[in-house]
Structures are given as C-alpha cells and as structure tokens.
C-alpha cells in the first residue's frame, strides 16, 4: 500500500483529479467577469455621463436603461454559471472522495484478511474497527478535495487579488499585507494542533480497545468485583482524551482568532486608504465598492485554503498511522488469496517439514528444528505436554501460521507458495474453540464451502460497475456460494450424516422443535396430522396428565393470564406478553368486560407478595431474575404505589401507577405461581374477554396475532407447540422430557424428522454462536470441517471440551470418514493416541520421537513419560 496519501490518491483517482482541476481552472474567467461586471454597471451605466448614450456595442445601439438591464441580465447569468461550476465540482469531488473512502476501507479490510495470525495479538479488534470505520472517514472528504481545492480556492483567491490589484495596487497590497505573516505563523501553530491530534487518535484507539476488552471480559469483571477498577481506568482514559481535546480546541481558536483579526484588516485598509483616494478623486466610488465586495469574498477562499492546510496535515498523519498499522511484516501474498486457485490441486502424498522453527518477536521458541514427514492418507497423532509446541505444529501444518524459518512442503509445493484456494479447501483445521458466525446453523455448517460465487449469480450491472470503480469485490454476496460438488448430491442427507458424526443431530433436532417454520401445502397438512396424532395419545390418562391442551372454551391453568386472554401467539411487537397493559386494544377489551378493577386488585396482591418475598434479598440476587415479577430496582417504586393505593384507593391512582399494577397479573401462571389470585370467577370473566378480544379485533391488528385454532397451523409458534397444541402441565415429574419424547415419536411416525431438522438448521446461533452451548459450538466447528471433504483434516485439541466417551465415538467415526485421507490430530491426552497409525511426540519445541504407538510405548520414551504423567 502506498505510504503517502498523495501517492494513493494519484494512483487510484488520477483521472478524476485531473478533471476536477481542469473544471476549477475553466471556472476562473467567469469568476473574473463576475467581479468586473458590477464595476462596469456602477461606473459606466449608473454613474456614466448621459452623453455616452446611446452606447454602441457591435453596431447595435442601446439607451442607458437598456444597457443597464442587459448588463444586469449578464450579471445574473454569471451568478448562475459560477454556482453551476461550484455545484458540478463539489458533486464530482464528493463522489471521488466517497469512492476513494470505499476503496481505502476495502483495501484495509482486505489486508486484515491477510494479516499473519500473530499480528492479532498486537493489534486488537477495537483498534482495527476504529481505524477502518471512524479514523479513515474524514480521509474521504479530503481526498475529494486533494487537488481541486487548492487549485479552485487558490485560483479564486488569485482572481480576486488580480482584480483588486488592477483597481488600485496600493489598496490591494495593503489589504493582503498581513497574509504572508499568516502564512508563516498559522502552520507553526497548526503543527502543535497536529501533534495533539495524533495523540488523540492514539488515545481514542486505546479507548475502543479498552471498551472491547470490557465487553469480552465482562464475566471476569463481574465475577471479581473489579467494576470500580474498570470505571477508574475508563475515567483515566476519558480524562486524558478530554485534556488533549481541550488543548486542540484552545489552539484551534487561537488560530481562528488570528485569522479573523487579520482578515478584518482588509476593510480597515479600504475604508481608510480607499476613502482617502476617493476623496482625492483618484479612485471612483464604484471601484471602491467593487473592491470591498471582492475583498469580502476574498476571506472565504483564504479561509478554505488555511482550513485545507489543516485538513491536509490531519489526513496525512491519519493515513500514515493507519497504513503503518496495516502493513505488518509476513502478510500473506495477495496473489495467494485472490483469484482462482490452480485447477484440480489436491493435497496428497506427504506434508514434509524440514528444519521448521517458530519464534515470536520476544524470542520465545515454539518450534525448533522440526523435520518430519506426515502422510496425507493416514491418521497421525501429535502429543506433548502443554507448551511443547504441539499446538503450534498443528497451526503450521494447517498453514495458518508461517514458520520463522525452515520449510513445509505440501504435495511437492512449498507451503508459503501455496494458494489459499488449496490450503483453505484441501486442508481443514479445527482448534479448541471453534468460532461461529452470527448466522444460522446451516450457514455455519456450510461456511467451509463458500469459496466463490455460483455461476448463476446475477448482480445488478450498475452496482458491479460502481464497485469496480472503487476497486471493490464485484462478487454478489447474495448469490449461491455453496460448493455443491463438495457437498454432494443430497445436501440435507449429507448435513444430517455429518451432524450425526459429531453427535449434534439430536441438538439440531431439538432446535428445530423449538424453531418456527412457515409450513405450507403438504408439510402443513402433515404437521396438523401430527397434532391430531398427538391428541389421540392424550386418551391415555398417564399422558393426559402431562399436557393441558388448548380449548377455546376452557381456561388454561398452565398458560399465563396474558396467554389465556390473547389465546394466540403474538406476531412482532404490540401484543408482547410483558407489555399487554400498554396495549390500547387489550385495555379496551378489559374495560368493556369490567375486568380492570379485578385485575388491579390482582396486581396489588401480586405486588404485595413480591415485596414481601423479595425485599429482604440483596439486589442482583439470582432469585429476582428467575422468579420475581418485579425487578429489584423497581421494588421501592411498587411499594410507593401500594402506599398510595392504601391511602386513596385503587381507583384514585394515577394512570401510570395503574399501568404498573395492571402489568403484573398478565404474567401469572396459576398452576405454577399459586398466589391464589386467579379464582373461578376471574377465569370465567377472562374467557369472556378472550372471546371479545378475538371477535372484535380491529382489522389493523389482525396480522399481529395468530390465534390457537385446532385445525389451523400456527406459523408464529414453534413446531413443538404446534404439535402439542397446549401447555406442558406444571408439577409433573419429568413432564417436559416425556412430552418431548412423545412429540418425537409422533414426528417419526409421520416421517417429519427431516422437516424438523431443516427448521433446526435455520436456527440463528447468535453472536459468536452464543445461543449454543460451548460443546455444541465445538461440534458444529468439527462438522463444518468434515462437510467440506478436505484431503487432510488438522485437529488441535478439537475435542478437549468433550467428555472421553464422546471423544472416542467421534474419533471412531472420523477415522472411518477419513480413511484414505489425512487426519492429523494434536491431542490433549497421550493415551488417546493409541488408535493412530503414527504418533509424533513433541517435547520442548522439538520432535522427541515418532513412530507407531506400540513402538514408542516402552520404558524411557517420551511417550511413556506422558502416559504416566496422565
């Protein structure tokens, strides 16, 4: 990447810059005319001798008035022409700037993708994010102005100066007498501001790094009660930034003060020197007026130029700082990542390491003199104590880390010359903590197959052209990126097979049960048939005790009061169960049924019970989150509401207080909460309210709720809830588990399993896979590596978080799946290496020994030592 912003600008936007500069130059004659014409109007027409008229121009004669209006018309045209020039130039400059900003961000991002992995230990996520987003933002604006602004504003300045000089050189010279001083002093002051600006950039970057760390380490902070320390650190960081920013402001305003004062010397000169000349009769009043007007306009370009100078320095510093950070040594060569890989390249034969060494910049040795050949068609285990170089060797073999010296030859090609299309497709790597992207299970599972856009991608040609101009990728991100050849003919079947291999199929099935599917046609019919089949099972009283089915004419004690009232699943916002009391339609129904006083009374009972139960607990106690209807912070508020109610009665409460109390009973689940609030009378009245709610639901709210109807599929509810069509009964031992078993039976009977798995595959895993458990994430990471059918799979402690039994079963299946292919497994326990064809034992960054397990398993070997250490 170019190390100077000017070189970067010239290389990527030379044409646009030339066009802008030419346009700026072309505008100057119009500008000069714009100042010249008023002088003519005043001096020659308004103040002109009547004897001069009719004037003759190009053989046409004009009266004084005609001449006045023609010149004024010309003036108007010049105004339009000048503004048009400004408009065109600004739009073009803006577009150039935005394109360059897009290119710059893209270039920086593309470099992040090629960073050597150790660089991420030095450059934090927060720093990278601020640099690409906030820090380079002003560069876009500057780049648009890089050449045209000095030319345009400088030219503007010269034109006006020329005009003034032509009018009266003494006056003009006096007006700009102090400009050279400004030109000398301002940059000096500016340099001071710049050094502060540099400091500010550094501090803000550290601040975002700090915030990023807080987010990632929030468990440690809360778990160690170090929030006070973190707050102090934040305060210190913000304080430093404040000081620097304040200094910047002070100096900026000093500069402004100087500039403005000097600029106002102009009018002083005009009034004094110009006035002197006019009184003496050596200068016409029109000329003086035109000069004053011109000088007023002189201030604007002069300010722009000084401002430009400030911005230029700022941009130069920012660009250089950013580019330095984004140019670490040892970056992957661009040609190895861009463009298609050599066709048909495979990894076969052997991975041959000779004299591999790996050290970090502090000199710590991770690998030293590692020479060995690893077959790409048999399972090989790498074992060793922590810190023996075992993990690093796996990373080097997967070409994720480059050795400091020595060479790794993969299928006859040096690894540092291999295209990423070979290493990233024919090799697969899974470390101890597989990272998941914030997408669905399916997207994550197939992530390893997204190498290039499918042939049927049809991006909008205009979008493609614009992306190309900015040097961005023109591939359509919404196309089908999946490598179907690698996935195989039966994608769903293959996905299920691989999920079963890592024992994640059951989890995905469960996710599917909890997931929703917009079922239509045959699928919908089958799901409804499953609902009927499930209902038939309820004939058995032992099963009937587990579920309370939905019945439009019966109150459901296992559902909340809110659910009983809605008798449907809310779609989107509005009928959110937590905020039903805020919904106007709900309130209207309750008013009409006369339920408001009853529910207020219920709310009072709930609030009083919550206060009684929970006010003795310290805030932040887990019981609040799990059991209380009222958050710890709100308890005093509710106490106050109850006090007011006790004094003046419930009816006298303000609307806000009533809303607070009313919101509580909706969450009650009579079977579970046993507060004795929901009696038979209330049940009957809530049923009446349920009927009114549905029968008179305004048209505009119809799409906000899907009612529970026995013979209609509910697309807003989960698959399990659709089949269950009721609530799992509270208080029955293992009810949820047994109900799930029954639902699963019905699903298998009706051959719906794959539909449920499909729904599970569409489950969003959350940020960093946070909605899945750690073991599930790891299994999904393994499945992702298997599904792309690599020639060699490199695993590094990939099953360390799993229990021994699971590891054994998964390992067996991987051995079968990878028979004839390579499987390099860096293991956390030496005894797990037994079934491998070959075992490599690492000790103190070197290969201690290598051979079959039987050969090495004897007294005095490094392997035996590891086995005995357990």
């Amino acid at each position, binding site marked *: 990447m170019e190390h100077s912003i000017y070189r970067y600008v010239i290389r990527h936007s030379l044409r646009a810059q030339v066009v802008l500069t030419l346009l700026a130059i072309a505008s100057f004659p119009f500008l000069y005319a714009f100042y010249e014409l008023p002088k003519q109007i005043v001096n020659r027409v308004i103040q002109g001798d009547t004897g001069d008229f009719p004037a003759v121009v190009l053989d046409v004669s004009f009266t004084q008035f005609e001449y006045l209006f023609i010149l004024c018309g010309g003036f108007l045209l010049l105004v339009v022409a000048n503004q048009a020039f400004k408009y065109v130039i600004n739009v073009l400059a803006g577009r150039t700037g935005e394109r360059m900003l897009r290119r710059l961000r893209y270039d920086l991002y593309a470099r992040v993708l090629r960073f050597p992995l150790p660089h991420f230990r030095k450059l934090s996520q927060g720093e990278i994010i601020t640099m690409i987003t906030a820090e380079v933002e002003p560069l876009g604006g500057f780049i648009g102005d890089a050449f045209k602004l000095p030319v345009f504003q400088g030219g503007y300045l010269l034109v006006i100066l020329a005009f003034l000089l032509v009018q009266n050189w003494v006056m003009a010279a006096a007006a700009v007498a102090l400009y050279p001083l400004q030109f000398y002093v301002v940059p000096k002051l500016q340099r001071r501001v710049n050094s502060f600006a540099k400091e500010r950039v550094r501090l803000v970057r550290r601040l975002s790094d700090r915030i990023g760390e807080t987010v990632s380490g929030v468990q440690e902070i809360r778990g160690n009660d170090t929030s006070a320390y973190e707050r102090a650190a934040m305060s210190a960081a913000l304080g430093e930034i404040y000081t620097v920013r304040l200094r910047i402001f002070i100096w900026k305003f000093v500069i402004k003060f100087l500039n403005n004062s000097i600029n106002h010397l102009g009018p002083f000169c005009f009034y004094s020197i110009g006035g002197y000349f006019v009184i003496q009769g050596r200068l016409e009043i029109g000329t003086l007026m035109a000069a004053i007007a011109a000088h007023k306009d002189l201030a604007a370009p002069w300010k722009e130029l000084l401002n430009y100078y400030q911005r230029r320095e700022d941009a130069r510093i920012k660009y250089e700082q950013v580019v330095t950070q984004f140019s670490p040594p040892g970056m992957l060569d661009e040609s190895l990542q861009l463009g298609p890989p050599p066709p048909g390249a495979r990894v076969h034969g052997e991975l041959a390491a000779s004299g591999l060494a790996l050290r970090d910049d502090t000199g710590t040795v991770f690998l030293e003199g590692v020479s060995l050949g690893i077959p790409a068609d048999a399972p090989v285990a790498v074992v060793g104590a922590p810190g023996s170089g075992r993990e690093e060797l796996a990373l080097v073999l997967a070409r994720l880390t480059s050795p400091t010296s020595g060479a790794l030859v993969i299928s006859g090609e040096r690894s540092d010359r291999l295209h990423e299309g070979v290493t990233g497709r024919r090799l697969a790597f899974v470390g101890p903590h597989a990272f998941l992207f914030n997408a669905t299970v399916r997207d994550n599972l197939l992530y390893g197959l997204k190498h290039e856009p499918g042939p049927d991608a049809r991006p909008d040609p205009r979008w493609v052209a614009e992306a190309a101009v900015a040097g961005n990728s023109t591939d359509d991100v919404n196309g089908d990126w999946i490598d179907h050849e690698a996935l195989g003919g039966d994608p769903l079947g293959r996905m299920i097979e691989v999920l079963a291999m890592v024992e994640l199929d059951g989890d995905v099935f469960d996710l599917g049960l909890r997931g929703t599917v917009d079922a239509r046609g045959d699928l919908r019919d089958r799901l409804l048939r499953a609902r009927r089949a499930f209902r038939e099972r309820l004939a058995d009283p032992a099963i009937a005790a587990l579920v309370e089915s939905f019945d439009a004419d019966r109150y459901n004690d296992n559902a909340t009061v809110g659910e009983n009232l809605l008798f449907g699943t809310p779609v989107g916002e509005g009928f959110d169960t937590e905020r039903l009391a805020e919904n106007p339609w709900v309130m209207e129904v309750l008013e009409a049924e006369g339920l408001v006083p009853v529910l207020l009374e219920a709310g009072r009972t709930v609030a009083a019970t919550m206060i009684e*139960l929970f006010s003795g607990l310290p805030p932040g106690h887990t019981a609040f989150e799990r059991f209380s209807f009222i958050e710890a912070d709100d308890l005093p508020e509710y106490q106050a509401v109850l006090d007011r109610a006790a004094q003046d009665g419930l009816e006298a409460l303000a609307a806000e207080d009533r809303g607070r109390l009313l919101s509580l009973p909706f969450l009650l689940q009579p079977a579970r909460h046993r507060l004795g609030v929901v009696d038979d009378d209330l049940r009957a009245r809530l049923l009446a309210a349920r009927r009114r709610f549905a029968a008179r639901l305004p048209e505009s709210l119809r799409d906000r709720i899907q009612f529970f109807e026995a013979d209609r599929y509910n697309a807003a509810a989960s698959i399990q809830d659709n089949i269950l069509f009721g609530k799992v009964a509270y208080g029955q031992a293992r009810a949820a588990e047994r109900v799930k078993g029954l639902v699963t039976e019905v699903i298998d009977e009706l051959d719906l399993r794959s539909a449920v798995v499909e729904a599970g595959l569409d489950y969003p895993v959350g940020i960093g896979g946070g909605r899945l458990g750690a073991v599930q994430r790891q299994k999904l990471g393994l499945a992702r590596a298997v599904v792309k059918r690599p020639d060699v799979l490199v695993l590094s402690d990939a099953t360390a978080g799993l229990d021994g039994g699971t590891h054994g079963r998964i390992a067996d299946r991987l051995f079968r799946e990878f028979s004839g292919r390579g499987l390099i497994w860096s293991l956390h326990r030496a005894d797990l290496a037994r079934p491998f064809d070959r075992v490599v034992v690492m000790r103190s960054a070197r290969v201690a020994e290598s051979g079959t397990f039987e050969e090495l398993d004897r007294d005095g070997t490094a392997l035996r030592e590891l086995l005995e250490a357990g």
Partner: protein
Amino acid sequence: MSLNEEVEVLRRVPLFARIDPAKLKLLAFTSERLVFPAGSELFHQGDAGDAAYILLDGEADILVDTPEGEIVVAKAGRHEFVGEIAILIDVPRTATVRARSELSTLVVTKETFLGMASEFPDVAIEIMRELAQRLADTTAQLTAARAAAAAG
C-alpha cells in the same frame, strides 16, 4: 395448594421448624412443586444430584443397591426431606428414592438451598442442628449394633 398452605406444610418439616415463615414463603415460591406417580423414581443411586425434595404428601421408599439386589433401608413420609446429602456435598446419590404412592414434593435446587443457607444464618444453624442430630442417631445405632455384635 396455595402458597400459604405450602408454608404451613414446610413449617412442619423439622429442618424448617424454627425458621421465619416469611423466608419459608420465599423458599416455597422459588421451588418447583413436582408430582411423582406411584412407582416412579425421584432419583437413582449413583446419579449426580442437583436437588433435594421435601415430601408434601404421600410416601416413599429409600432403597440401596446391594450385591443381592435392591433392599429398602428406610421409608420417608409427609414433611420429610430426602436427597439433601447430594446437594450439601458433591457426591452421587447415596440411595434410590421411589414413590410408594402418588407423591407430591417440593423440589429445592442446590442453588436455592445453599443460597438460603448462606443468606439466612438461622437456616444454616438449623441444618447443622439437624445433621448433628442425625449423626448422633447414627452413632447411637452403630454403638448399639456393635454392642449387639459383641454380645452375640
């Protein structure tokens, strides 16, 4: 059964006899009530334990696996507490508990139980008293058994 009735039942559990009813109400509210059909197991010997059960109604057998098969070592009935050892110390269930009749229980999770013990010293002292009592009983039984063995 309403919350207040549950509190009444809890007060009859020896472990909770001396505890403030307000605290028992919190315990009742935050604990799940589970019904076990006759013949079903609350937990099995050797399982990992994460909850204790207060028997609100019904009877249960306490069984131990022996080389000769399962034998009933004790019975538990209304107002008794079972399964508390596994939540006090991390050991697998030391016995199996099976419902003799339909059994209504209050499930006290490890978290709730330990939380109460650490927040309300009364509860902790009561637990100590109860456990000390049991230890004394067991010691007495053991002494009696040894004496009987020596005599026999």
